[in-house]
């Protein structure tokens, strides 16, 4: 039986979302396959790693007992020994427990996880892992960088400017660059997901406050134009070379009432028009009820974006559509959709168990392909030295 380590938590503002993703959408379905030994690996907010079966219980986090657990439990060490091995003290006679990991299922959202840092570590260990590789994850997590690549490949994206947070100490040049954009604008931390730190700005007087909010959460900020006659769409996609789309989903929100973190995760999506089905992230229309030609165009754009960015395993592409002009704009890519967007896959005919099984399969395929690539090259350079 193969061992799958599900890594979640992390030093990120989306730490709590990650716990839900791991426990509800990954660990449980993986265990139900009866094919894997599933190890829960939790990264605390301070960056410490823990590995224990008790970490699979949601009540540990809800009750706050996790603090007590962390005080008593041994921290985990990682060993790169022809793959990845988890090591922790057994707390008896100095003995240690070892667990060889066959596949890693990252479930970390945001910084120090979804942004490619964790994937880099896993690449070093040469262990198969689910989802996009470290390069794609790093690009995907930088909204400005992702837009640059997307626009370069011919896919439309809304006009934007980006800058580093420290540039706000002398905001004149930042404000000047923003002037070329038309209001209303969206101000976002460039690397965060789950709608944290996002503001909608209708006039210049609201701008500075929004910039400071975004800069509070991230070292890079992106400011984008709002799309008129907006239809927001999102499409989860999975696969490596031949990606499979789920269903285009339309969050039921008004432009002035867009999804923020509280709406998505805390209020069950009650903000907004409140019609449609309640998915893992609030109310949405699933599948999106839009004309067929527009549906096909949006799906095609999302698949192109997935391939252009080099995504593998799973990702979710967010699109913005002008319903009058039928222009489809790439908005952003999420390399680890919250809850894997299992509700959407389920509606598309793929159960949670099937979903995690497929993702494990893609991870192994990707890893096998990578093993074919030569990593050494014989030279006589050392002899000449």
């Amino acid at each position, binding site marked *: 039986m193969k061992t799958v380590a599900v890594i979640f938590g992390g030093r990120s503002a989306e730490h709590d979302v990650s716990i839900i993703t791991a426990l509800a959408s990954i660990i*449980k379905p993986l265990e*139900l396959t009866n094919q894997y030994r599933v190890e829960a690996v939790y990264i605390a907010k301070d960056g410490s790693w823990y590995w224990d079966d008790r970490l699979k219980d949601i009540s540990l986090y809800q009750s706050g007992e996790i603090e007590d657990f962390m005080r008593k439990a041994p921290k985990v060490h990682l060993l790169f020994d022809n793959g990845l091995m988890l090591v922790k003290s057994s707390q008896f006679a100095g003995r240690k427990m070892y667990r060889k990991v066959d596949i890693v299922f990252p479930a970390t959202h945001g910084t120090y996880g979804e942004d490619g840092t964790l994937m880099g570590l896993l690449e070093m260990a040469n262990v198969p892992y689910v989802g996009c590789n470290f390069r794609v994850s790093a690009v995907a997590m930088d909204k400005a960088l992702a837009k640059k690549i997307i626009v370069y490949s011919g896919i439309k994206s809304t006009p934007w400017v980006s800058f580093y947070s420290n540039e706000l100490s002398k905001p004149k040049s930042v404000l000047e660059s923003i002037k070329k954009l038309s209001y209303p604008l969206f101000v976002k931390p460039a690397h965060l997901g789950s709608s944290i730190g996002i503001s909608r700005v209708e006039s210049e007087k609201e701008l500075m406050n929004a910039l400071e909010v975004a800069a509070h959460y991230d070292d890079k900020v992106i400011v984008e134009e709002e799309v008129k006659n907006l239809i927001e769409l999102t499409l989860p996609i999975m696969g490596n070379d031949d990606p499979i789309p789920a269903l285009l989903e339309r969050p039921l929100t008004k432009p002035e009432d867009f999804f923020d973190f509280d709406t998505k995760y805390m209020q069950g999506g009650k903000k907004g028009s409140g019609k449609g089905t309640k998915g893992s992230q609030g109310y949405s229309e699933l599948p999106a009820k839009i004309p067929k030609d527009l549906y096909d165009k949006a799906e095609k754009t999302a698949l192109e974006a997935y391939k252009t960015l080099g995504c593998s395993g799973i990702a979710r592409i967010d699109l913005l559509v002008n319903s009058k002009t039928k222009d489809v704009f790439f908005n952003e890519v999420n390399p680890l959709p919250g809850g894997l967007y299992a509700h959407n896959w*389920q*509606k598309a*005919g*793929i*159960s*949670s*168990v*099937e979903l995690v099984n497929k993702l494990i399969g893609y991870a192994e395929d990707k890893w096998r392909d990578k093993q074919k690539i030569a990593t050494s090259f014989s030279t006589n350079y050392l002899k000449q030295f």
Partner: protein
Amino acid sequence: MFGALTILYSPKFARVIAYMLQATEYSITAYIRWFWRTEDFRRIIYRKDLVLTRPSRLILRTLQLGMFLQIVTAIVLGIWSTHHHTSIFLPLAVALLLITPIFWAHLITIPLLLGRYLIIKPYYAFEVWKSRKLFTEHRATRIAVGGSYGKTSMKEILLTVLSEGKKTAATPANKNVSISHARFAQSLEGDEEILIIEFGEGAPGDVKKFTSYTKPHIGVITGLAPAHLDKYKTVEKAGRDIFSLADYLKDQNVYVNAESSETKPFLKSAFHLYSYQGVDRWVVSNLKQSIEGVKFVLSNGKTKIDLRSRLIGNHQVGPLALAAVLGLELGLSAEEVKAGVAKTEPFEHRMEPKQLSGGWLIDDTYNGNIEGMKAGLTLLKELPAKRKVYITPGLVDQGKNSVAIHEELGKAITKANPDLVVLIKHSVTDDIVRGINDGNYKGELRIESDPLDFYTNLKHFMATGDLVLMQNDWADNYN
């Protein structure tokens, strides 16, 4: 091993015993069999727990007090013998301590047996004797519904359809034994026009006894299949008991399900046969089924009635057609019959469609016979779906034919050809697997050992486009 033993001496053991008695409906034989079959009493209270009723609470308290007193006596005796150096009492104290759980697990059956034979049986006999007069004097047309399977569904269909035009009463839920009939008779208001009485046979002579006091005018026999073979031993013997209903009616006004092949040896020319093809001269045509129900045309010469029901499965057409025909014969108009049939809907846990995770789940967990299982599998085969899943633990009480019946079930599963078959692990699992393998099944086969865990997490296995059929659910005492 050690854990399995510790529960015998834990305070929870009394509760386990009380639960086992309650789950077997205080049948001492079934309880004793279950007790000696059990290897680990920690697994007994798992899916369900003891429901505290007056009798169960009394049993629980008696067990707790009795076991406590015996343990205290053993300890006191042990201490006393140690202090007085009378070593003869020490082994006695140890033995007294060790036998506590087993002794009380059996001792508790004595007051139950005494209560049954000295109080309950005479009381029930008196109640049944009183009901004979109530039934005889009641002016309603009395319809008896008997058979190895499908009785409760048939009764509910008749009740729904006939109530549309006549004041009709029926025995409640699956209450179908003598005392239930007696209580039903006592609950009647007196002005009912039709009474429907379900006959729940369990041992030879039951049906003959039921007819003797309910005195039916019409008999419906829903089918014959291996059931309660622990008492009947053979299907033939069960058939003889069930068809004693026809003997009582002198073969007149007897309606028999022609789809049940086991009834064939008992059929007589005077009987009326019903099936998905019709009843007597009434013919079924334009039959269509979906997950939302069945619809068909019932015609007799130029008379045509369009019928639509929310019951699912073609096997429901026969009972629906019979209810319609009986309704017409008992004085309902065609419109009333049509409205009555339209009101029939799936009964809880019997071919009951439910939506789960975007897919359809057909809950048929109260199905407990091979004919019903095959009807469900036919439905699974015929309904369109992106992916089909079949879940079952198999059947109980199949007597010496159990192996053959489960192999037959395995073959029926193969014919239905679901994409995934999930067998809940039990003593009959290997027999089903053998039948599946004989049928050369190509899909995926899973064997699950923990039904509670599997059922709880079923939502994770399902998605839009899935059709899942879940048949039968073994009660804990069959584990």
